[in-house]
């Protein structure tokens, strides 16, 4: 099937097998391998992207369902060569170790803080239930997200 999907501001027209998952479309067709696959069942959140501004696990959607949509991946999060504040906060707070969950974690957290400036630690921990990290014990991830949430509330 023909699809036209805007990814990180660029329109990509492709003929795809209808069963192709969006995450495979991004990784295999567009070579945007920053979006990861960590489970088959939509628990882990490693594949999180933004679809028309909303947080989405890209393993839960077929590429054909994203026809006409605007997708942002981790590769498109930085603006004008500057890290997004959430990327900076993860780096500054040691919010990552092996880095595999990190793109999804950052994409989910960036949208969460955008919609919930000033979120409390408890709210952050509850929200992050949809993203699994095996390395950090979440402590420094929560710290990073809280830093951005506090800054967003102060702005």
């Amino acid at each position, binding site marked *: 099937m023909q699809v036209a999907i805007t990814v990180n501001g660029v329109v990509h027209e492709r003929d795809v097998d209808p069963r192709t998952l969006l995450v495979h479309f991004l990784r295999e067709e567009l070579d945007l391998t920053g979006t990861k696959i960590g489970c088959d069942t939509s628990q882990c959140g490693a594949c999180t992207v933004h679809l028309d501004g909303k947080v989405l696990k890209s393993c839960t959607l077929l590429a054909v369902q994203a026809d006409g949509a605007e997708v942002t991946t981790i590769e498109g999060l930085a603006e004008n060569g500057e890290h997004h504040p959430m990327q900076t906060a993860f780096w500054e707070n040691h919010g990552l170790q092996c*880095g595999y969950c990190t793109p999804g974690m950052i994409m989910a957290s960036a949208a969460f803080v955008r919609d919930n400036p000033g979120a409390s630690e408890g709210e952050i921990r509850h929200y992050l239930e949809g993203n699994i990290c095996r390395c950090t*014990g979440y402590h420094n991830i929560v710290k990073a997200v809280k830093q951005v949430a506090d800054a967003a509330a102060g702005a």
Partner: protein
Amino acid sequence: MTTRIFGSGIKRREDPRLITGEARYTDDIKLPGVLHMAVVRSPYAHANIVSIDSSAAEAMDGVVAVYTSDDIGDGLAGLPTAWLIPDSDLKTPEHPALAKGKVRYVGDGVAIVLADDRYRAQDAADAVVVDYEELPAVIDPEEAAGEGAPLIHDDVEGNIAFRWVMGDREASDAVFDAADVVVSERILQQRLLPTAMEPRAAMAQYNPATQELTLWCTSQNPHIHRFIISAVTGLNENKVRVIAPEVGGGFGSKIPCYPDEALVSWASIKLGVPVKWTETRSENYLITIHGRDHVQHVEMAASNDGTLLGVRATVYAGMGGYLSTAAPGIPTILHGLLYVGPYTMGSVFCESIGVMTNGTPTDAYRGAGRPEATFLLERMVDNVARKIGMDPVEVRRKNLIPAFEDGYEVATTLIYDSGDYPAAFEKALDMAGYGDFRRQQKSAEADGRYLGIGVTAYTEMCGLGPSQVAGAVGFQGGLWESATVRVTPTGKVQALIGASPHGQGSETTLAQIIAEELGFPVDDIEVIHGDTTETPMGWGTYGSRTTPVTGAALAQASRKLKDKARVLAAHLMEANVDDIEYADGSFSVKGSPDQAQSIQEVALMAHLAWNMPEGMDPGFEESQFYDPPNFVYPFGTHIAIVEVDAETGVIDLQRYIAVDDCGPQINPEIVAGQIHGGVVQGAAQALCEGAIYSDDGQLLTGSMMDYCMPKADMFPNFELGETVTPSPHHPVGVKGVGETGTIASTPTVYNAVLDALAPLGVTQIDMPLTSAKVWSAIQSARA
């Protein structure tokens, strides 16, 4: 004087590529013309293969070939077990890359499909028709070792792969017979799924013209993978290049060499094109090693005054359907030798029985044998305290080994390097406010609220280890590391290491060691790892050994360079070597501070070699092989405070205090991260994780929908403290910290919950402590 880089929690040098999605993990790497491999896997835990019909699969679009064990023939040797425990009557049953005539666990490979696309490869794998004759299966290791259990390998009588004994049984009996108090418990160390967030993957590219094989794979130890792939394929080791690119966590599960790595290699050799395989999470849960799986019968002897006299255990350790790469070493050497812990206990005895079962093979999982030892010890100490009516903290305090700086031999024959266990213990109790807590607990109980506290004192052996010891205990490799510090003419550093970090931040930590030794800015130091062709030989990243062992090699290589630089600087400044002073990367002449050569200037002059001292070779590069003289023994005390809702069985982990001593901390933020992650992994064993099998050997927790991974909202912020006791035998005094959190936290959380439940009469619950189990235990105790 600038801020000292050693000890500074600088940002990690690996992070810019990781936070932007630019890092390349194995599955991210693409090669033109690659074929995708899918594996036809057994749906039965134990069955004879009657027939395999691949004709329908072969006819499908995009399918290039389907192969079974018959097609491979002798093209691949069986996968080796590489830890051969001596004096244990060890049997090593054949482990073919694809099953020959019989499958032994759900997920055992039966055939492989090669196709031009991963979806098509999986479709075709589903179309391979395999006729099985199902056999009775056994999962529980104690049951598998019992009378009448189904025999899994014809050449492993009674399913017993080894029987390892530590200590003197009669001496132990004498201690127990004479003791005032003996407590006992059957402890179940449930199976755990390591769950590195990156599933395993492998891609092989064979070049028929040069007869060279390149294998990209998710490995913690590419040099060991090269060794094994060379052995199983028959290619010379110098024709095999293994590359572990970015690796997304391992926790032990990426140490073993699995059938899949061998199969992509064989298929690429056979077809002359690149072949790639990436496991799904469901596949990962079925075929990538599991951890723990012990049934332990444990006893502890003590005096009425709380003096701990001895511990003994019979351990049935489930090995699964085959003996994985390092499996026999885990419930033996890495387990029994920890039975003394941080205590002055004089008697230890362990009989560990490795049992073949129809489960997924087990092997090293974060902590590997040491969590299972620390748990039983700490559990029994609490049981002793309860039995004699003494505060468990008092029992521990009474039995802790006093501070020592250079060597303390314990009953297991280990010589601990250094420790001040009482200092860490008291610090943790202070942080927790132990006395106040006990008062709060009493008043809460009066209100019908159940609070509990768990206190674990631990030490562990890591930084594996002296090679001579490795040989003596049957490890089929050395345990040294090597490193090269290479300085370019412009004064930039490439540090090449044989170890293979996969999330630990070693590119940063190790750069900090070099920066400390030689004065180069840390941003001018690149640590290169993971490619067997680019890096010197090394045994890999596991056993909390990269900072202790590779770090020592780098420190010593740096010191060789510094010695050379000092002589060259003296020569260039026409001064006596003894008059050269070094500070912050600069060599100056005593008494004339204006005369100085920076390390970068010296490096350039060494490369130019226009004016070298008599007998000095050009270049500015040094290598070091480092074989540690002993293990390192980090230690500490962890404390958990929980509240249990008696009406629902729900556990609220309210506080977690960890005081750890890993010697001087090179990067305290990275150390803290290791502890945070380890604590969650261990606490989750106590609280929710556990692989569950049906009686016929089906893994019921086969996806993240069913296997309880710890989530952010299950934990509080952690309260960390430290003490600093350098290792006397290490060049920079450091000890490993990768596994301490996992080792300490399981008994800490478990004991806290049981402490909370004590007033309700609950004395034991098998892990994990799910709310359903806790609730049931409360109901049973009330009944």
